[in-house]
């Protein structure tokens, strides 16, 4: 009995310790960031970042850049992830499927800064793509693919276990059975995509190598020299200018909120499964 209580007590204490940093982080962000956003209003979401000492402005350029890169990265990652996951699930046990699975698992833990450098060397320098949203999105998609693929594998495997035999027993052809498995596993796949987007939305290291460090350009063409919210935070937070520090806090809160919303959406999709 005493032992049970002790274990319960220790678990409770650990939970508190998990809570502390989270609430602390959130409070600091709210205290520092919320006034900035209220002061800036809608302008803060749509405007151009200010010059040193020149008011608050906004983060419209980098927010647009982040959304643009998230969309391009998703367009690259989603088909690759789903097809890879489908292959791994349908040919489970085969040598190539095992190799693929190993690669996906390794990629998940791969340092993102190295992904940034590699994309810089291959795409920015050798293929002369330049520092822009496309290069950034390529780096981000390499980070996103393993997350979405692993989530898709788990869900499609479950869907396959449940519906492969059913599909064939209803006289479906191979391609219709695959359609059925995808369709019945789709919510989990969408969850994975949302988690993947949330993951890349806050990624900083790869952007430092693949995008620019000027923050006042809106997207005009696909290859406009733009960057995302995290690199603005990284640069502004280390500046000596008070108005830049304010912008960094506001941007950090926006980033945190966006990622939290994406994770919440992902949770809702997971729960709808049953």
């Amino acid at each position, binding site marked *: 009995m005493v032992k049970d209580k002790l274990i319960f007590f220790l678990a409770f204490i650990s939970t508190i310790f998990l809570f502390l940093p989270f609430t602390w982080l959130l409070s600091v962000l709210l205290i520092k960031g919320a006034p900035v956003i209220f002061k800036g209003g809608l302008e803060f979401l749509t405007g151009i970042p200010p010059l040193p000492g020149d008011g608050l402005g906004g983060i419209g350029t980098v927010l647009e850049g982040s959304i643009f890169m998230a969309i391009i990265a998703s367009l690259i990652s989603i088909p690759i992830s789903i097809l890879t996951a489908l292959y791994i699930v349908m040919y489970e046990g085969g040598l190539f499927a095992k190799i693929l699975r190993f690669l996906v698992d390794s990629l998940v833990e791969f340092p993102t800064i190295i992904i940034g450098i590699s994309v810089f060397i291959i795409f920015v320098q050798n293929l002369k793509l330049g520092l822009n949203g496309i290069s950034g999105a390529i780096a981000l998609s390499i980070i996103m693919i393993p997350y979405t693929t692993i989530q898709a594998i788990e869900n499609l495997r479950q869907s396959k276990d*449940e*519906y*492969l035999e059913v599909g*064939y*027993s*209803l*006289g*479906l052809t191979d391609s*219709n059975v695959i359609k059925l498995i995808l369709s019945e596993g789709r919510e989990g796949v969408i969850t994975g995509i949302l988690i993947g987007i949330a993951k890349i939305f806050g990624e900083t290291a790869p952007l430092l190598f693949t995008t620019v460090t000027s923050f006042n350009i809106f997207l005009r063409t696909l290859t406009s020299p733009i960057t995302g919210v995290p690199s603005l935070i990284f640069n502004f937070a280390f500046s000596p200018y008070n108005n830049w520090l304010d912008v960094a806090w506001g941007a950090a809160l926006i980033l945190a909120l966006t990622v939290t919303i994406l994770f919440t959406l992902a949770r809702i999709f997971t729960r709808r499964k049953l």
Partner: protein
Amino acid sequence: MENYVFEIDHLNVWIENKHILKDICNLKIPKNTIFAIMGPSGSGKSTFLKLLNRLLELKKNVKIEGEIKFYGQDIFKIDPIRLRRRVGIVFQQPNPFYHMSIFDNVAYALKANGLIKNKADLINAVTEALIRANLYDEVKDRLNKPASVLSGGQQQRLVIARALALKPEVLLLDEPTSQIDVVGARKIEELLISLKEQITIILVSHTPQQAARISDYVALFYDGRLVEWGQSENIFTYPKNELTEKYVAGRI
């Protein structure tokens, strides 16, 4: 010959080098009957069932020897997709398509297989299948609701309706009531009895009691072997084999 749907002889099956079915000889499944297969778990009942519509071959490392005839024709020479449309199957766990409406669950195979394209025909076919599965009255006002709103027993009848929509000649059922409550199970048993006028039913039964209640013919599998088969009343009243006697009495 037309009186038998399936005729099985000298059948052996190995899965991953394990001998699962051992020399099943001279087993004939008569048309328009309920044929129950019983036996302790691991005796090869489900394997046998999945063999009859060639679902077993989806597994890796399956070796099949021997003869299975479907209306006199070698099943291994029939296109499996066509065979499966004629020989439907229902599994132990109710497995409707949870993302689809009740209507779409039944309509799915008809649409995906391109068998019915006209909307009015589709509605008729779905209605007919639901009526045959004794489910129509319970769901007619909520055909667009997802299948997950139904109880376990209703889901299992929905799955039966889904299989019936293809108008199969044979329905295979693998312990269809073992996961269902008593009332739901009774409804399924009544349904099977009403269906046998039109189609042949092969049922893996999880209890000898159920087999005795509803089957016309019964076979006992034990350790991959066919111990005995025949008319249910004979087998249950005068079992020839000692194993059958023990199984029916609930001693193995």
